[in-house]
Structure formats: structure tokens, C-alpha cells
């Protein structure tokens, strides 16, 4: 998740920005200046490889954000065939300068061995952690992850890249005395482009929910043993959501839908004392599942699995029924249920749509009644099931549309590491003031 990798990158760079007298921090401090040069040069070489990794992430991330960042300072072009994001916008200039700096550097990117081997030196270790976070952040912002960014999220990402670039420029200036240090190409241009991008982004409304995007590890069921009380219900509901990854048969889907209707209805009663608004939402959810259950009565089909999901659904209902009706649900637990309900409400319509489209769910046909005027006793039975196409399953698909996850777009806070990096960029080292001494002495 970009929130974690970006946060670590900014934290490590902020720590580096607060370090001064860098040359003394590299190599053995007790060694003489001449004997410490090889150590310092070696440390500088490693740091430049780490810097190249961070620079590569910056160059790629800004390219992911660039098409979605529209300059707030430039007026819209009168010619509709010209885009407002090209050329000479701040983010475009930053992308150009970053690519130039990355390509002009003779230092390679840090290898996996370098990224994963801790260093005893504090400065190098901070660089290693920052570069490691940058390498992991490629998962979160480049490729498919970058293609899902919204424009406000891209603005936030461009602002982050600008801040990281400014940190690299400041550190580049500070590390000039390291033996063999290679400067960034056009550092002045790079710094000003970063500053202009940060300014341009701040005039818009960046969305810091970008922190919630990116790669996430695969979710597993909770292997903590059955919990007691309401936490046991929460655990079973979580495991149900995990198990719903596999496609269930029509019968198992009916059982799962039934469990969700029961859970919502009972939990709505329990949560009424602590959160009346949520109680109303869960009642509405129970009604939606009731309607869906009604529409699934005549749906059959044996394709699929879903046995473990049904078992977890049964666990959730049984554990909830074992609770006294006056159980108080804390707001935090209620929020946990809401998150899980949102996931399930998103997954169930996906399952139904997939089942209808792939022909896994079928429509049950009625048995012909006795007919007395057709010259035969009963109409012959040709089929017992028919494919449930979009037209025949319209009522069912309409019922799934009532399951709307309650995920409301919330304004995510920018996070502490962003302000920490900004203050580290602006801070000045403490100067040694002469001891004023004691007056009169």
C-alpha cells in the first residue's frame, strides 16, 4: 500500500535532512582525514545507488500522475485539440528534469542485496530504508496501480514526488564534500520544477486517499481460533468474505444470502442503542437481502463450490443467536461489521452477474399441470432448467442493485510524515551560540 511505502520514504528522508556534517558521519570518525577517504568514498558510492533507486521511482511515479494533473495556474486552451497538461506545465517540467537526472547519473540502481542488507552506518541505513521503500512503492504507483488513480489522487502523488525531489536536491548539495560524489544533473532546474509542482498541486484539492491505493497482501482467514461473543461473529463474517472469493453454487448462494439477512436484522436491533443511523442502514440491508432471497427461489445450478463460505455464514448466525439480545455493540466493532458488510455487498452482485453471464445459474421451470383439453394427459416435459439470461433474470439483477456498499468518499488526512518532511526541508541547523556566561563575572 502506498500509504506505508510513501510514509517510510518521507520519514527516512526527513531524518536524513536533519543530519549535518555528513562527511564526519561516514567512515570511522576516529580515523585521520586521509585514511578515512576510501571508506567515505565507498559509502558515497552506495548512497548514490540508493539515490538512483529513489530517483527512478520519482521519474516513474510522476509519469503515472502526469496525465491526470491539470495545471491550476494555466488557463484552458482555446483550441480544444490542445491539452492543458502539455507542455511546459510544472509537472511536465518536473518529469523532464527527473528523467534527465536519472538518465545522466552513471550510478546504477541499488541491487536487491544492497536493499536488504542493513548497514551499521546510520546515514547509509537511512538511505537504504528510503530506497527500499521506493523500490516497494513501484508496486503501488506504477503500471496497473497507477492506471486506477483519480485526478485528485494523482495531484497528491505529484505533490509527494515534488517533496521527495526537493529533499534529494537539498541532500545532493549537502553531500558535495563526500569524495567521488556525483551531482544530480541540473539540480537548480530540478529544485525549481519540484517547487512549482508543489505550488501547483497545493492550488488544487489533492486527495490523500491515494495512501489507500496500491498493492496489498492477499487476505487470509483469521487463524486465531474461534473467538467468543460478538468478536466471534465478526471473525466468522470476515472469514466468510475471504471464502467468498470462490464462486458458490446457487444453493450455497441462497444459504449465504439468508445468513446475511438474518445477521443484518439481528445486528440492527443490537446496534440501535449505540448508533441509530447505522441500525437503519442495516435494516435496509436486511430488506435488500430478503428481496434477493425471494428472487433466488427459482434459481438453481450446481456449478461452483462455496461450502466453506456457507460454513462461515452458519458460524456467524449461530454465534450471533447465542448472544443475549441486549448485547451492546461498540462503535468500533460496528464499524468493523460495516466494512465487512460493504465487502460482501460488493461481492454478492459480482457473483450473481458472473453466474448469469456464464450460465452457471439457471431458472427452474414449472412442472406442467394436468391439461384436459389438449388431447393428452399432461404436456410433455422437455426441460427442467433454462439458462438465466439478462432478460429472464432482470428481477434478480435488479435486486442485486439494491445492495449498495456504504463506502462514502471521505477526505483522508495528509498524514504526519508529509508535514514532517516539509518541516525538515525548511529547518535550519542549530547554531552554537557563545555562552553568555554569568553577568558580572
Amino acid at each position, binding site marked *: 500500500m502506498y500509504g506505508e511505502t510513501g510514509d517510510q520514504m518521507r520519514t527516512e528522508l526527513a531524518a536524513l535532512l536533519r543530519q549535518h556534517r555528513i562527511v564526519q558521519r561516514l567512515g570511522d570518525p576516529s580515523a585521520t582525514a586521509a585514511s578515512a577517504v576510501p571508506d567515505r568514498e565507498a559509502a558515497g558510492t552506495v548512497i548514490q545507488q540508493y539515490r538512483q533507486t529513489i530517483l527512478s521511482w520519482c521519474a516513474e511515479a510522476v509519469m503515472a500522475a502526469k496525465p491526470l494533473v491539470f495545471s491550476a495556474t494555466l488557463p484552458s486552451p482555446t483550441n480544444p485539440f490542445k491539452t492543458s497538461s502539455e507542455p511546459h506545465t510544472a509537472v511536465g517540467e518536473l518529469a523532464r528534469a527527473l528523467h534527465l537526472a536519472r538518465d545522466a547519473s552513471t550510478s546504477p540502481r541499488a541491487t536487491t542485496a544492497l536493499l536488504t542488507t542493513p548497514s551499521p552506518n546510520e546515514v547509509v541505513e537511512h538511505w537504504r530504508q528510503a530506497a527500499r521503500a521506493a523500490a516497494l512503492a513501484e508496486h503501488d504507483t506504477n503500471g496497473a496501480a497507477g492506471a486506477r488513480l483519480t485526478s485528485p489522487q494523482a495531484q497528491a502523488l505529484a505533490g509527494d514526488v515534488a517533496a521527495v525531489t526537493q529533499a534529494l536536491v537539498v541532500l545532493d548539495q549537502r553531500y558535495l564534500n563526500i569524495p567521488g560524489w556525483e551531482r544530480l544533473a541540473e539540480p537548480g532546474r530540478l529544485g525549481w520544477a519540484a517547487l512549482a509542482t508543489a505550488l501547483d498541486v497545493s492550488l488544487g484539492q489533492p486527495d490523500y486517499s491515494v495512501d489507500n491505493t496500491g498493492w496489498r497482501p492477499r487476505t487470509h482467514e483469521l487463524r486465531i481460533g474461534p473467538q467468543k461473543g460478538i468478536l466471534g461473529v465478526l471473525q466468522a463474517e470476515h472469514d466468510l468474505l475471504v471464502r467468498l472469493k470462490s464462486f458458490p*453454487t*446457487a*444453493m450455497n448462494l*441462497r*444459504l449465504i444470502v*439468508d445468513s446475511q*439477512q*438474518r445477521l443484518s*436484522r439481528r445486528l440492527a436491533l443490537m446496534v440501535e442503542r449505540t448508533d441509530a443511523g447505522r441500525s437503519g442502514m442495516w435494516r435496509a440491508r*436486511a*430488506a435488500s437481502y*430478503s428481496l434477493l*432471497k*425471494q428472487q433466488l*427461489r*427459482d434459481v*438453481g*445450478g*450446481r456449478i461452483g463450490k462455496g461450502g466453506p463460505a456457507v460454513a462461515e455464514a452458519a458460524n456467524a448466525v449461530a454465534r450471533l443467536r447465542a448472544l443475549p439480545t441486549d448485547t451492546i455493540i461498540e462503535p468500533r466493532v460496528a464499524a468493523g461489521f460495516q466494512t465487512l458488510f460493504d465487502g460482501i455487498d460488493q461481492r454478492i452482485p459480482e457473483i450473481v452477474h458472473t453466474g448469469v453471464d456464464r450460465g452457471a445459474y439457471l*431458472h*427452474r*421451470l*414449472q*412442472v406442467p*399441470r394436468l391439461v384436459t383439453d389438449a388431447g393428452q394427459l*399432461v404436456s410433455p*416435459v422437455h426441460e*427442467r432448467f433454462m439458462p438465466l439470461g439478462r432478460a429472464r433474470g432482470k428481477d434478480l439483477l435488479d435486486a442485486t442493485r439494491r445492495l449498495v456498499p456504504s463506502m462514502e468518499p471521505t477526505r483522508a488526512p495528509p498524514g504526519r510524515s508529509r508535514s514532517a518532511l516539509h518541516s525538515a526541508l525548511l529547518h535550519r541547523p542549530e547554531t552554537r551560540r557563545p555562552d553568555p556566561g554569568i553577568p558580572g563575572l
Partner: protein
Amino acid sequence: MDLEHALTLAQARSFVAALADAAVDDDASAAFERVLIELDWLHGDASPGLDTDGLSEDRDVLYVAATAAIESLALFGMDALDLELLLVRLEAARALDRP
């Protein structure tokens, strides 16, 4: 499944579904739905479709008809204990349905 078996099962399903639709509240309706799901479960989900056209709206009549239809399923080789358990569930749902 014989045609007669299918007809009896369709009747049982239709009566239970009609009871679920006519239930006084959601709890009773959910209990009848559960009976319907278990009825389908016993038949390996090979049940015929519902045919609720022209059924009585009187819940007492529907309940008696549903009980009779489920009991009749024993004639087609269904396990008697399974059917008895189903009838117990139907009775429990009926108890919830009383205003």
C-alpha cells in the same frame, strides 16, 4: 424424479413460498424461506419452479396444504426423518407467524 413427485414437490414449494410472502413479519418470512431452502437441499437442488398462481391467501389453508404436501413426499422415497424435521421447522415458522 417422477412427474408425480415433481408435482408434489412443486406444490410443497409453492405453498411454503406463499406462506413466506404472506408472513406477518420478516422473522416469520425468513423462517419459511429457510424451510424452502431445506426442501430444495433435500432434493439436491433439482426442484421444479414455483407456481403460486391461484393459491389461497388464507395462511391457515396454506399451512395445512404445505404440511400435507411435505408429508406426501414420503411416498416418493424421501427419508421420513428428514421430512419430520422439516415439518418441525415449518411448525416453528408458523409459531412465529401468529400475530
